[in-house]
């Protein structure tokens, strides 16, 4: 015979289950706008049947609430995370490329930006043309010199802006690394909490959502892979303990190892990698091992990679060469990748990589051939080499700084330096053949300022004699007064030229040919577009070259940002399609579970009536 009060228990379980379901629905509805919240469902099952020693064998015991679990498909998470890092890379790059582009934009293009290179450069030559028609007038020469000054100021400002950008990216790298550390710490803590809950048989839904949210964030910064393994009882391999082992790897390197986590730290570079870099750029190392974490390695993506590429990108034009000889304190390389002094971008003291070992130099000297091309570099090392080391590096490839194959800030700096050097050299060498208005021999008009000492480099150690066109010397060093010293930051007009009379329009001549002689101006005018100055073109093509460089990258970033954003939206939609809370669905659930609750209540009241009948009415 069936138990008399059994029905009450069954109905109670129904009430309970409906209550739990309604609660979960309420929770879902409340979290409808919560970021990263996954819809939760109550998993119900028929409670274990009760063995009844009757003909019918067993009897149902009601409903059991097994668990409250979240609806989540990790497959989409993984897809989303993969996409995020590429999106992060392009988004970040685009953001910075647009700034760089903005620094170079010329005012003639749009109404709202100031005068750019092309305007200033053609103004210089317009002023020069006025000097040609009136070479004797100091006001016209003054105009020309002030336009030349404007050109220098333009480059100084552009360099300053790029360096400011470099510095702010550097700061952002620091913040980003702090963020990565805090994320890894949080994930490790969450892993522990989740396991504590889940080993008890529970489901740490909210904690899992939080953890996934953190990985979402992390995956935008660095390429992230996540692995979650169930922990089996080591004695009974088929027994699941409820715990999971959760690891997070960034670009294949372990960041979070279940309850443990690694941190990254920023270390200021002791030596600059590129000549025009600012001081104190950060490199990233693993705090524990001090091993380097290379944010621009192959397969790297994410915002961190974007920041490093923009900050350090030299288009792979850093100096490389092969070691041909070395002594205890010098290394000499030949077949250098940079043979033109105008294109040199190595810092005067820096870092050498050879044989996977880092050395530092505090100066270098170069040997040149008869055309002024550099054939070898000799670096003065800060620390002596052992004989074993000397033997080890022989014939090995040597790299100065870091090869970052992207056109970032160092690349544009170097483009400006290269242009300025060849332009100023051409300009100065024409000027130096002349005499100023007072009949004194003319020196350099464009000089490099030594900001620290307030002195000028007038490039008198020039490799090629301006008068004869032949090579003057066969060596120069990082300290020599050469065009190596001229950079977009240091370019200036010689102090002597603040007097407009100190400007040559005429070659030195033993006769008095008159104030309006302008033969040098004719030669200088050739520099505008006829003399090959920059990347095989005239000076006026400088900005055009820069435009095309910037455009290629910016357009790539724009296109990929759009593409990956739309991919990301799609994946996110799919993810939301699975785990998102739908209000209509929840409303239906409400109706459904309310109904179930009502029915269970009804059962109880029916049973109550039955007991009433049985106990009070029956047999009394």
């Amino acid at each position, binding site marked *: 015979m069936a138990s008399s009060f059994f029905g009450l228990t069954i109905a109670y379980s129904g009430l309970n289950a409906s209550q739990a379901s309604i609660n979960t629905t309420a929770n879902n509805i409340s979290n409808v706008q919560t970021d990263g919240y996954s819809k939760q469902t109550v998993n119900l099952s028929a409670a274990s049947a009760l063995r009844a020693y009757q003909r019918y064998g067993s009897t149902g015991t009601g409903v059991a609430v097994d668990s409250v679990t979240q609806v989540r498909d990790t497959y989409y998470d993984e897809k989303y995370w993969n996409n995020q890092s590429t999106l992060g890379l392009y988004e970040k790059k685009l953001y910075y490329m647009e700034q760089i582009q903005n620094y170079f934009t010329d005012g003639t293009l749009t109404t709202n930006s100031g005068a750019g290179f092309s305007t200033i450069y053609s103004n210089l030559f317009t002023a020069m043309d006025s000097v*040609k028609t009136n070479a004797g007038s100091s006001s016209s020469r003054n105009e020309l010199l002030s336009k030349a000054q404007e050109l220098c100021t333009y480059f100084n400002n552009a360099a300053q802006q790029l360096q400011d950008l470099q510095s702010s990216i550097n700061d952002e790298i620091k913040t980003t690394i702090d963020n990565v550390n805090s994320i890894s710490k949080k994930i490790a803590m969450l892993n522990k909490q989740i396991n504590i809950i889940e080993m008890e048989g529970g489901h740490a839904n909210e904690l899992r959502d939080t953890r996934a949210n953190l990985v979402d964030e992390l995956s935008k910064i660095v390429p992230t892979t996540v692995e979650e393994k169930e922990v089996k009882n080591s004695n009974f391999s088929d027994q699941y303990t409820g715990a999971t082992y959760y690891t997070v790897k960034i670009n294949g390197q372990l960041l979070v190892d279940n309850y443990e986590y690694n941190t990254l730290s920023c270390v200021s570079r002791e030596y600059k990698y590129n000549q025009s870099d600012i001081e104190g750029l950060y490199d990233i190392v693993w705090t524990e091992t001090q091993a380097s974490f290379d944010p621009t390695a192959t397969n790297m993506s994410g915002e961190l990679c974007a920041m490093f590429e923009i900050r350090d990108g030299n288009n792979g034009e850093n100096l490389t060469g092969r070691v041909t000889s070395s002594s205890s304190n010098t290394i000499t390389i030949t077949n250098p990748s940079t043979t033109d002094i105008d294109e040199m971008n190595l810092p005067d003291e820096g870092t050498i990589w050879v044989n996977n070992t880092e050395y530092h130099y505090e100066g270098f000297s170069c040997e040149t051939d008869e055309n002024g091309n550099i054939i070898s570099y000799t670096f003065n090392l800060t620390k002596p080499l052992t004989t074993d080391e000397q033997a080890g590096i022989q014939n090995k490839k040597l790299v100065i700084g870091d090869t970052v194959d992207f056109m970032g800030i160092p690349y544009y700096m170097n483009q400006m330096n290269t242009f300025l050097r060849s332009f100023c050299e051409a300009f100065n060498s024409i000027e130096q053949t002349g005499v100023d208005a007072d009949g004194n021999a003319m020196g350099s008009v464009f000089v490099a300022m030594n900001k620290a000492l307030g002195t000028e480099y007038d490039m008198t150690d020039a490799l090629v004699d301006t008068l004869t066109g032949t090579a003057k010397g066969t060596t120069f060093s990082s300290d020599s007064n050469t065009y190596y010293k001229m950079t977009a930051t240091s370019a200036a007009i010689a102090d002597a030229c603040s007097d407009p009379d100190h400007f040559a329009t005429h070659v030195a001549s033993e006769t008095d040919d008159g104030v309006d002689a302008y033969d040098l101006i004719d030669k200088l005018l050739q520099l505008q577009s006829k003399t090959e100055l920059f990347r095989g073109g005239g000076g006026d093509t400088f900005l055009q070259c820069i435009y095309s460089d910037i455009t290629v990258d910016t357009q790539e970033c724009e296109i990929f940002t759009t593409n990956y954003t739309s991919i990301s939206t799609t994946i996110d939609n799919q993810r939301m399609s699975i785990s998102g809370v739908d209000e209509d669905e929840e409303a239906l659930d409400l109706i459904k579970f309310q109904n179930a609750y009502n029915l269970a209540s009804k059962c109880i009241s029916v049973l109550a009536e039955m007991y009433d009948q049985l106990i009070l009415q029956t047999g009394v």
Partner: protein
Amino acid sequence: MRVTNNMILRNSSYNINGTKSSVQTAMNQMTTQKKIEKPSDDPVVAIRSLRLSTSISRVDQYYEKNIPDAESWLEVTETALTNMKSLMNDVRTQCVNGSTDTLNQEDRNTILKQLKALQTQLFSEGNSDYAGRTVFTGYRTDKDLVYTSDESTTSYTIDQNFSYEDIESFRYYTGSVAIPNTADEVLNNDIADISEADYSRLRLSYDKIDAMSSFSYTTKDAQGATTTATVDLTAATDVTGNNADGSTFTYQTATATDETGAAITDADGNARTMYVFDSEEDWETAFGGKTVSDNDIVLIKENGNIVLGNSVTSELKTNKSTISTTYDRTGFYEGELKPEYYFNCTNTTDAANPVKYKKYNEDGSEVGYDINYIVANNQELTVNLEASDAFNSDIQRDIDDMITAVSNAISAHDKIDTLTAMKSEAQYSSEEYQTKLNEWIEAAQKEADYADDHLQKLYSSEIGKVDSYLDNINLAITDVGCTCDQLSLTKTRMSNQQETLEELQSENDNLDLSEIIINYTAQYNAYQSSLTAAGKLSGMTLLNYI
């Protein structure tokens, strides 16, 4: 697929954002009317825009600065030349006046006065300036062409070259009547006999020279080999001569040598000798008349004449020689041309810091001091005209000669007047005096006749010279005119080019307003409808119905 409310919201916000950014782009285009905002929007447009701006700024410089500048410059030049031409016409008028044979003393005085005035005026036009820049002086636009005041201490060493074609014949007159002042002198003084001699001469561009340091002539034979004969006047020998009144004067002699240093002699073995006299009077005194031997050369420092002996003349002419001289001069007068515009010379006023000037190269070609304005792409225009191209430095010396001739005539006629007046004086009423005075008058008359003859001949030959100078000026005016025409053609071309370039740039950079508005309206409509669609989503879910 399961679709949740948040997905719909997310999607519509994504779409609204898309249309909104299109509206922003269209809005930007509308406010700036530019096609692109940054180079990466369309690098082709951006780079083309850079090129066009550079071209426009160049054309602007040509069209708005260089061409108007050149026009004004040429205008000043033309005005100056026209003025100079009318002055030169005045000189010609005086030549015509002087060449008639019916001149009275008053006419001669008028001619003298006019010529003296013209002599200082003639080149003052050469100092014309455009915005403070002298137009005829090559690159030396800060310097005058002619002296504006007398500069007594300025000194120059001048290299002047001649060709055999510059050798001209000139009449020299020996003797002049010295008016007797006392009765005794009337009776006892010699009455000078005036004689005329015709010699060939070279005339230096300056008179009153201090000294000549070298005189040489070069002959080129058919094979092109040159032979040079030089008179080194720095090694000249001083000779003292005696004046009639007992005072003395000095003159120099030097002999000509060939390249080997050997003396050049004539058939009789006489060395070719150059004599240097301070004045024609010294020459006359030293040689007892203004004569020069066939093989000799005489330099008169006072008037810068180099008188050549007959055989020297024929030798130079036959061999088509070129003659070089180097001489010093101190003191320049108002209206005189500065030597640097015509000759290689050195300003030695400050002996410690001499200033060299170059007008001719070693090979004799002229050094051009052309001021070229770029008036169009690859087109340069010479705006300046150098003085030496428009007016000959000889003009002034011609006027000098004319002044000397007319003043000689005036003084000769004065002498006749004085003697004629003496004749009627009481103290000379005796027969003896009257006869003697008639002799004096006869001599004076002879002098006056020679002077008149010289005047007339000289002036009529000057008409031809002045005409050729006028031709030069006219030619220069025509040249300037042609340049002006060329410039005005270029100006029209540049104006068109400027317009074309601006049009091209506007086509390249700017959007058509109607196009923008249509585009904007379309984008705005899309935005509006996306907003409307999103608005409809709001709120209503099943929850509202339970």
